[in-house]
């Protein structure tokens, strides 16, 4: 397929998505469920791709995502709680003077800076997460496979404990969490930020660094023998992945408008891991599709199972609140047992494949229709 054709198709696809998002934005009231669920899906897509970068492409089994998301979320939240309501948020322990000074400083900045404030907040959150990753990466990245997973999991739990500790009451509001966070202006904003983040990671994966990451995943001794500095590349992948985990944590804070330490428990990491596994470990498009699919089905489509169902006067058993999670778990089990490579395996979405399957389908239909007539021999 020609490049120009591919670009045309991609532009058409982008326009369709954009038009759809505009439609949702203007009809928010009627499509509330789709609106929120897609927004959450886009946010989870960012963190799923960042986890895929570290786990799927570099082969570092890291389970610290929730911890890095928490760092990003709390920093973004502090940036984005309006100054006039901040006292209400910290109503129990009072707000730390440092934060108050910082908020006043932010308010005194010129107008254009206030407009891009959410972006600065997300960037700062991501950078803080990256800094933490760089620091813990030094001891932790010497570990391999399961040991690395346990160490990063530990880090994530420590972060959560620190955030909810009473000593930090005036900064993180301890176990009460932060609320009244300024949210996204529109779903288009959410999707744009997500798209920029994912594009950056895709560019990294496609660069020579990405190739080195894959070499480390495949065989680290051979990679080292080729002159690839293992520690430097592992550290790079880990830090970049954590940066985007932090950014998506900030996005999650903006989406939920209120966060507390329980939001960032281990189960959040597992949810993301699940998305990555279903999408295919080592496929960016797989992660994106699966993030949207998993979120939509978990929060919306499977809701059907939560309501009592009557066929005539007969009430179908099991259909009650919580049953959707049972169904969801069964689907998961099926995926893990029978579909281990996930939706996409290690491959990516490409117009060539779509083109091939379309022409294959065409040929199939043509064969069927021409069967009645004379057999053509080419």
């Amino acid at each position, binding site marked *: 397929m020609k490049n120009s054709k591919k670009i045309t198709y991609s532009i058409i696809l982008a326009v369709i998505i954009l038009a759809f998002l505009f439609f949702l934005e203007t009809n928010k009231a009627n499509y509330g469920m789709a609106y929120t669920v897609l927004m959450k899906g886009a946010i989870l897509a960012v963190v799923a791709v960042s986890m895929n970068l570290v786990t799927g492409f570099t082969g570092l089994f890291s389970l610290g995502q929730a911890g890095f998301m928490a760092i990003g979320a709390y920093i973004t939240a502090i940036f984005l709680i309006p100054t006039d309501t901040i006292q209400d948020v910290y109503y129990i322990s009072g707000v730390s003077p440092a934060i108050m000074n910082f908020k006043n400083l932010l308010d005194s900045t010129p107008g254009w800076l206030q407009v891009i404030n959410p972006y600065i907040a997300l960037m700062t959150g991501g950078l803080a997460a990256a800094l933490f990753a760089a620091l813990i990466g030094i001891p932790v990245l010497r570990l391999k496979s399961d040991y690395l997973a346990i160490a990063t999991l530990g880090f994530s739990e420590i972060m959560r404990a620190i955030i909810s500790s009473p000593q930090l009451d005036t900064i993180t509001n301890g176990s009460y969490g932060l609320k009244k966070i300024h949210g996204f202006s529109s779903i288009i904003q959410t999707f744009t930020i997500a798209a920029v983040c994912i594009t950056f990671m895709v560019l990294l994966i496609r660069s020579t660094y990405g190739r080195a990451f894959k070499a480390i995943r495949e*065989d680290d001794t051979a990679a080292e023998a080729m*002159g690839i500095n293992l520690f430097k590349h592992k550290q790079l992948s880990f830090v970049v992945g954590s940066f985007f985990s932090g950014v998506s944590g900030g996005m999650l804070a903006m989406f939920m408008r209120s966060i507390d330490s329980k939001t960032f428990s281990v189960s959040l990491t597992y949810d993301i891991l699940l998305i990555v596994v279903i999408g295919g470990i080592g496929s960016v498009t797989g992660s994106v599709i699966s993030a949207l699919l998993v979120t939509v089905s978990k929060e919306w489509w499977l809701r059907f199972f939560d309501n009592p169902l009557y066929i005539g006067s007969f009430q179908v058993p099991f259909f009650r609140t919580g049953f959707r999670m049972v169904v969801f778990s069964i689907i998961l089990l099926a995926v893990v047992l029978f579909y281990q490579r996930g939706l996409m395996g290690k491959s990516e979405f490409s117009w060539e494949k779509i083109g091939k399957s379309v022409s294959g389908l065409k040929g199939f239909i043509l064969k069927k229709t021409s069967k009645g007539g004379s057999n053509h021999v080419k």
Partner: protein
Amino acid sequence: MAKNNLLSIEDLCVSYGGIKAVKGISLVVSEGDIVTLIGANGAGKSTILRTISGLVKPERGKITYNGEDITGAQTTTLVEKGITLVPEGRRVFPNLTVLENLKIGAYLRKDNLEEDIQRIYKLFPRLEERSWQLAGTLSGGEQQMLAVGRALMSRPKLIMMDEPSLGLAPIIVNEIMNIIKTINKEGVTILLVEQNANLALRIAHGGYVCETGNITMEGTGMELLNDETVKAAYLGKAKKK
């Protein structure tokens, strides 16, 4: 004509934990030569190669390359200087394509690779046919060719091969040995570790016999090939007399 010593090792000792794998060996590789290191399993041959390429740190001893002390240097700097290892058991990257494997071999180079890729394809036409195939789907011999090609992509002056004949059919082994000779004729110095002593000594200019961490014998390829003890121990021919 006195040849320049490209690599020389003096009194090298390497231990894994408390176990001494290499116990004070010395050897010299002259520029433009094929030098082979033969010996049984566990003699320490692979350890010597791994130490030269910086994957293992030596306990004692000195490694000199082109007159420069490189003892304990990082693998990255060594590859930059022109020492590349073809690791034991091929170790290609199975889920990457042949072409990607070759490109990783040139990871440290910033210049244009096209010329080198064509050179490798000329050397191994089969790799060109399979350039889009995943390396894991190649046959053993093709994987070994890929491993050698990948190492050549870094434009090494000294290429060290760890048992390139391992697990390959005799006809493929001959092919690999011919390729080693070709590479050598193009000006690359080769340090070859082999268990297949017969073949290795036939193509080598010089050889060393390694036994339980020591070097017990050295000489030219032909000398060793005709030596009665080597024959008995490694070439599978009974001592006559």
